[in-house]
């Protein structure tokens, strides 16, 4: 008698359909098929946007569904990026170093290779030693594990500390923001082992695929991002639609009641916090190879707040809302700041959107909070007025 999960949640199907059509469309119009309507760099922008949508869904689950306004999920996103960036940078530098050492008569020792790679990577911060955190950077599999483990463990430890002392609401937001700030300040240091404010660069070059054109690589990553977003969407839709969803929405609406029903609220918060942190990390690991560079500025507290802004504008408490918000605002933002928007001549003053976009965003954000608390996603309620 039980209906399948998909049939109970038709919006998931619609979303997957829209995502597939979109993906197909982009691939057809890209340089790979020779149609060249969409440039490689725009394919990358779209691929990155999909990753942002994924982290926005995670944010929506933790905030919109569970009521934890985390101002740290973009930090988890960044950690994922750093984790994959370490391997990308290591493997690529290794290839270059091996090439140059090959020319020598005497084959290099492992120590010489490691020194040369270390010199290449850490020369900018005046070091050549590999810090301990790079221990797994030479193996793709282990480092992929790090993409999941590092954000997961960090979220687990931080969440355990925060939730067990019953830090809630605004306090918790500030605490997560403090965590993000601490992390970005740490990464800004030259002796952080991650190249200080230089960050990790050259990530768009995938080791082993040096001869593959960026057009192809960009499409591969775009597809991977689309698959990840689709999988993430289905996963989270499954999580929030069942009894788990009931409990975490209960935690959001009335934590005490859930507690007196016998649920260990802290475990649920920790579960949601950690699982969304992991997904954020995965999204970051897909994003930064497309961006090509990651530096501590990406992790700054403001980034996590923007994430909350996307979700709020898109509409909290509905997964497609987060996707719409992230895609809409981030694309609009790059359109405005990239000089795509035409200047507005007011006679005495010309509004240049590169300068005024943030003002517009800030004001419209206030407006959304005040007048459309359900965000853009709320508009769907008017379109799809289903009898309940």
């Amino acid at each position, binding site marked *: 008698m039980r209906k399948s999960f998909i049939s109970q949640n038709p919006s998931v199907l619609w979303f997957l359909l829209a995502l597939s059509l979109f993906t197909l469309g982009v691939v057809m119009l890209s340089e790979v098929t020779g149609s060249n309507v969409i440039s490689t760099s725009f394919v990358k922008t779209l691929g990155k946007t999909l990753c942002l949508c994924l982290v926005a869904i995670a944010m929506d689950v933790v905030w919109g569904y569970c009521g934890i306004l985390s101002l740290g999920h973009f930090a988890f996103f960044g950690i994922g990026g750093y984790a994959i960036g370490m391997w990308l940078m290591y493997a690529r530098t290794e290839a270059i170093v091996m090439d140059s050492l090959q020319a020598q008569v005497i084959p290099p020792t492992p120590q010489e290779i490691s020194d040369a790679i270390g010199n290449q990577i850490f020369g900018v911060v005046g070091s050549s030693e590999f810090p301990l955190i790079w221990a797994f950077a030479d193996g793709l599999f282990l480092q992929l594990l790090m993409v999941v483990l590092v954000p997961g463990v960090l979220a687990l430890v931080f969440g355990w500390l925060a939730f067990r002392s019953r830090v809630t609401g605004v306090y918790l937001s500030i605490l997560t923001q403090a965590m993000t700030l601490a992390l970005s300040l740490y990464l800004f240091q030259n002796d952080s082992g991650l190249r200080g404010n230089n960050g990790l660069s050259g990530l768009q070059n995938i080791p082993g695929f040096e001869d593959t054109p960026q057009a192809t690589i960009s499409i591969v990553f775009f597809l991977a991002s689309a698959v990840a977003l689709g999988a993430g969407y289905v996963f989270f839709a499954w999580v929030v639609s069942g009894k788990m969803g009931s409990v975490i929405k209960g935690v959001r609406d009335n934590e005490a*009641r859930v507690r007196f029903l016998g649920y260990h609220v802290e475990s649920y918060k920790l*579960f949601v916090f950690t699982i969304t942190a992991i997904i954020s990390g995965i999204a970051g690991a897909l994003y930064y190879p497309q961006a090509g560079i990651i530096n501590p500025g990406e992790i700054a507290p403001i980034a996590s707040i923007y994430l909350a802004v996307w979700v709020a504008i898109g509409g909290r408490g509905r997964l497609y809302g987060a996707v719409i918000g992230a895609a809409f605002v981030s694309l609009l933002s790059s359109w405005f700041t990239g000089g795509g928007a035409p200047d507005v001549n007011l006679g005495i003053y010309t509004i240049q959107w590169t300068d005024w976009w943030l003002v517009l965003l800030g004001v419209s954000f206030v407006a959304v909070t005040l007048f459309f608390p359900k965000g853009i996603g709320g508009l769907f309620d008017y379109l799809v007025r289903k009898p309940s």
Partner: protein
Amino acid sequence: MSMLLEVSGVSVTFDGFRAINNLSINFAEAELRAIIGPNGAGKTTFMDIVTGKTKPDEGKVIWGEKNISLLGLSESQIAMEGIGRKFQKPTVFEDQTVRQNLAMALKNPRGPFAVLLHKKTERNAARIDAIADEIGLTESLTRRAGELSHGQKQWLEIGMLLAQEPRLLLVDEPAAGMTVEEREKTTDILRKAAQTRAVVVVEHDMEFVRRLDCKVTVLHEGAVLAEGSLDHVTSNQTVVDVYLGRGHA
């Protein structure tokens, strides 16, 4: 006869104000009890202590056959031990359907992973239907709890407590804001529940307490002032002075 819950010598102070003062009170298995008392007598604080929300400064709270101390347990652990609590204001999850509300309360494994992998079963469905029938919300199972009337919300909350299958039910002012008919129905639900478990009703409304027709404990300034049948306590002069003397009987 062994007691289900023994509270002995409990005191708690808030910023110098003694909310509970050396309180001792016991509840037996399958008992209906009403706790009355004027404002500030410590009724709600008493429930906070039993359910683990407030930790007392001194005293003991002993539970069940194994004589477990409840003081070391968290709210959720106490709930799992079999103590259900209904708040003064109706607190149901307004965003979710009546069925979801009840399903969440059903006695089932409470761990996150068990809940994540939870499968809907015939048995659970049947239990939900039974409880819905008991509280008279069968018609409304698919409605959002937020759409229910005030009285229906109260019943839903009591239904959620019943779904937890507790051995002790603490009910805070269930009749507040209800119509006469609704009160009658509430009385029925509680009396029926008390056949299989202990039900403690904290109430203000004498009519309602009289209708429950059970043993009554009068709290005053954080301690037990009198105990017995309603008639017995209302004939107690001290009780009349502190409480009933205000013109209501």
